[in-house]
């Protein structure tokens, strides 16, 4: 039977991945040439997580024809495939068969993270210099005298110069930049302290003085650079992972020329008036008008409406919607830069203002702290000048004050906590864009949820399976395996374990359903009015004309009811948020009835249906105006402006590209418990950060008077500085305990629901 084999393949495809495989032209477009006929394609594979995954993927891809090599990068969850020849090897399909969902992404021309490399080099140089100078200083402290001491000081000075120039450059540039714009940041006291200390030490060395501060200035740089590197690593890791998941925007389309020739063009080159061929399963790249063909469109990402929409020639379609069942020919009415997608980006950019005003806690503290430090040092200098008249002594003590107050602990206090927290969240499948996102999340009092794709999975579920004759259900499931319609996908899970039914012919009627013939009778699965052409269809049944039915020779043998499946743990997540004192709202583009149903299931009192993207944006802005700090959780294109307008936002990994880019957090697993988990960790991290800042302030309160009184030797300064840093790091590590508990709970939940799911589907 000719139809069975493709049917079986299709079922595998449907079970394996919900997204659509990119076409080979698309892969070719996204790959880059390495010269000599060799090409490299980068794929994002978010589910890679262990050595076994690496081995499976590399071995399977390496075995494909024309594939030169495949290399998995576990940190960024990417696979780089190098291949030769004209034909694109079927690596995406191969990954799909292994159970890994792969997405294409376009690597930027300049993909390497230059800042990170520079920071790590700076840490290495500062560490090397600090270690050597410290060794020499210890010899001085333990009693080196005269010429030996001078020699050691000179060697220290020589080592410190390149270290300050190279490693300190990062701070000097930033401080200069801030001062030039009339601002104050943490880097200003660092730059001033370090350079004054070096200059003073050099003066001491030339005049055969007893004390030099080379060790202090360089080890200060070393500690601060560690904090800065950690901060950067956290941000960059989440950003690359988020960037990697590009799946939703169409990369190009098949264009039909006037003379009948067909070209695959990238989205940017599509112009209004071109005729595009959109196969079933492809996304529509630009806004357009249908000129030929009927189909069902999945608009859930664009409008939030969950039921597929039937379309016929003459209707307008928006960029980003997924063509489900039949091939379409559309005429582009707008270029990519003028389409619905671009409109969303514009709305989003104009909405971003509110968030830009947020200043990170570290910046706020340093704005207060930096002038205070300089003032204290200056007053100390004046005081000692007045008391003793010895400018050299006054200067030395002022520098000691400057060094001991240098925000070493402050510099580490914030990033170390955020890195530990981000690492923990990452392990539970939540990616954090940057540290300020955690600070903002900790402050929220209102959470706004989108419905489709966020509270619900955006995929319908068959609810009356128990009341349907299992034989009929199995036939329906086997027919459904031939279609991409969401209702069909929901049905394929109920196939009889014995194997496929033998159909003589299966055809899909786009917009209506599937027709199959078996042993002379005709079976139809689809819209009630179309399938049951002999049945009395007027006004009967729960859903009347519009429901889904299975018919044999025109008589209805089974009817199907669907509802949107709730995301795993949605109810538990809402309850936890309520317990945490966060009030809840649901905004949706879907109908009032659909919203009311979900709201009732989840116990949400406050919801607004039928909202346009700008409507959601307005709701968020109104809430913000009355003083609420709003968390937005959403996934659709229509949520994107709201995501960027909210105080902080979370998106699931299934969200559209620009949605994920607009969101501050992205959760990779299905469970919605990620939201309360992220909130809990952020609040805990916020507490630890405040504690750390308090520790740093207490340290200063103790150390500064000693320094002002002139009792600080370089040894004491070095010990005090290191001790305060270690204290801050130790405090940050306390987050481990809290997170360990929370993570275990979530993992157990996920396991349980996974077991439940496999039991259900087998």
């Amino acid at each position, binding site marked *: 039977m000719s139809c069975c084999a493709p049917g079986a393949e299709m079922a595998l495809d449907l079970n394996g991945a919900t997204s659509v495989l990119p076409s080979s032209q698309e892969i070719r477009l996204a790959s880059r040439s390495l010269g000599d006929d060799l090409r490299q394609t980068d794929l994002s594979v978010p589910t890679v997580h262990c050595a076994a995954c690496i081995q499976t993927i590399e071995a399977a891809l390496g075995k494909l024809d024309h594939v030169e090599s495949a290399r998995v990068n576990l940190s960024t969850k990417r696979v780089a495939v190098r291949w030769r020849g004209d034909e694109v090897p079927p690596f995406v399909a191969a990954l799909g068969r292994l159970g890994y969902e792969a997405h294409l992404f376009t690597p930027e021309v300049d993909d390497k993270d230059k800042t990170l490399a520079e920071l790590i080099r700076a840490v290495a140089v500062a560490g*090397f210099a600090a270690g050597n100078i410290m060794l020499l200083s210890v010899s001085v402290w333990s009693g080196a005298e005269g010429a030996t001491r001078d020699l050691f000081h000179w060697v220290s000075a020589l080592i410190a110069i390149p270290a300050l120039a190279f490693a300190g450059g990062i701070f000097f540039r930033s401080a200069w930049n801030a001062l030039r714009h009339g601002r104050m940041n943490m880097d200003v006291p660092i730059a001033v302290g370090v350079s004054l200390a070096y200059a003073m030490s050099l003066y001491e060395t030339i005049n055969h003085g007893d004390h030099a501060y080379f060790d202090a200035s360089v080890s200060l740089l070393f500690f601060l650079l560690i904090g800065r590197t950690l901060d950067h690593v956290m941000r960059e890791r989440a950003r690359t992972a988020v960037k990697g998941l590009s799946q939703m925007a169409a990369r190009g389309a098949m264009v039909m020329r006037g003379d009948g020739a067909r070209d695959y063009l990238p989205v940017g080159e599509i112009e209004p008036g071109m005729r595009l061929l959109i196969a079933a399963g492809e996304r529509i790249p630009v806004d357009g008008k249908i000129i030929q063909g009927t189909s069902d469109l999945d608009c859930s990402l664009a409008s939030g409406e969950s039921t597929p929409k039937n379309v016929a020639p003459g209707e307008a379609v928006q960029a980003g919607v997924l063509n489900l069942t039949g091939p379409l020919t559309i005429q582009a009415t707008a270029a990519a830069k003028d389409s619905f997608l671009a409109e969303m980006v514009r709305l989003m950019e104009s909405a971003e203002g509110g968030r830009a005003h947020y200043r990170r806690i570290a910046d706020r503290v340093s704005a207060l702290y930096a002038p205070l430090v300089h003032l204290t040092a200056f007053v100390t200098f004046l005081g000692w000048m007045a008391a003793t008249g010895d400018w050299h002594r006054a200067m030395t003590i002022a520098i000691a004050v400057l060094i001991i107050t240098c925000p070493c602990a402050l510099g580490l206090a914030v990033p170390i906590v955020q890195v530990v927290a981000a690492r923990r969240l990452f392990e539970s499948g939540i990616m954090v864009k940057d540290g300020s996102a955690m600070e903002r999340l900790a402050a929220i009092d209102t959470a706004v949820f989108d419905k489709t794709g966020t509270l619900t999975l955006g995929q319908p579920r068959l609810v009356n399976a128990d009341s349907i004759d299992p034989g009929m259900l199995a036939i329906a499931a086997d027919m459904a395996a031939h279609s991409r319609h969401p209702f069909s996908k929901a049905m394929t899970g109920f196939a009889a374990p014995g194997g496929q039914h033998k159909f003589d012919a299966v055809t899909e009627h786009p917009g209506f359903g599937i027709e199959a013939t078996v042993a002379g009778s005709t079976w139809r699965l689809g819209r009630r009015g179309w399938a049951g052409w002999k049945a009395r269809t007027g006004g009967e049944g729960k859903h009347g004309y519009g429901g889904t039915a299975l018919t044999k020779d025109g008589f209805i043998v089974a009817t199907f009811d669907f509802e949107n499946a709730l995301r795993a743990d949605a109810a538990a997540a809402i309850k936890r948020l309520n317990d945490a004192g966060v009030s809840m709202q649901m905004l949706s583009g879907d109908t009032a009835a659909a919203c009311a149903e979900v709201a009732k299931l989840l116990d949400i009192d406050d919801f607004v249906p039928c909202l346009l993207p700008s409507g959601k944006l307005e709701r968020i802005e109104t809430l913000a105006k009355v003083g609420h700090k709003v968390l937005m959780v959403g996934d659709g294109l229509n949520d994107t402006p709201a995501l960027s307008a909210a105080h902080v936002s979370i998106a699931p990994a299934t969200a559209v590209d620009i949605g994920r880019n607009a969101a501050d957090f992205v959760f990779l697993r299905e469970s919605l418990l990620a939201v309360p988990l992220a909130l809990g960790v952020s609040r805990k991290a916020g507490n630890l950060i405040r504690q750390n800042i308090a520790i740093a302030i207490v340290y200063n309160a103790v150390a500064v008077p000693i320094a002002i009184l002139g009792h600080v030797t370089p040894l004491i300064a070095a010990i005090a500085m290191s001790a305060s840093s270690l204290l801050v790091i130790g405090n940050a590590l306390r987050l481990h305990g809290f997170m360990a508990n929370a993570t275990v709970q979530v993992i157990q939940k996920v396991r349980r629901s996974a077991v439940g799911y496999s039991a259900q589907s087998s």
Partner: protein
Amino acid sequence: MTTLLYLIPVALFLGALGLSGFVWALRSGQYEDLDGAAERILIDRDDKPGR
């Protein structure tokens, strides 16, 4: 005392050697996939040592 005159340069040279080794490793991309490197030691390769 005179020993210091050559011991200090020797110590600095060795340290600088380590530093340049690190910078070389950084440039050649060995720090690009730290998680992957940690997991890869668990992978059994089929290729046996030659006899």
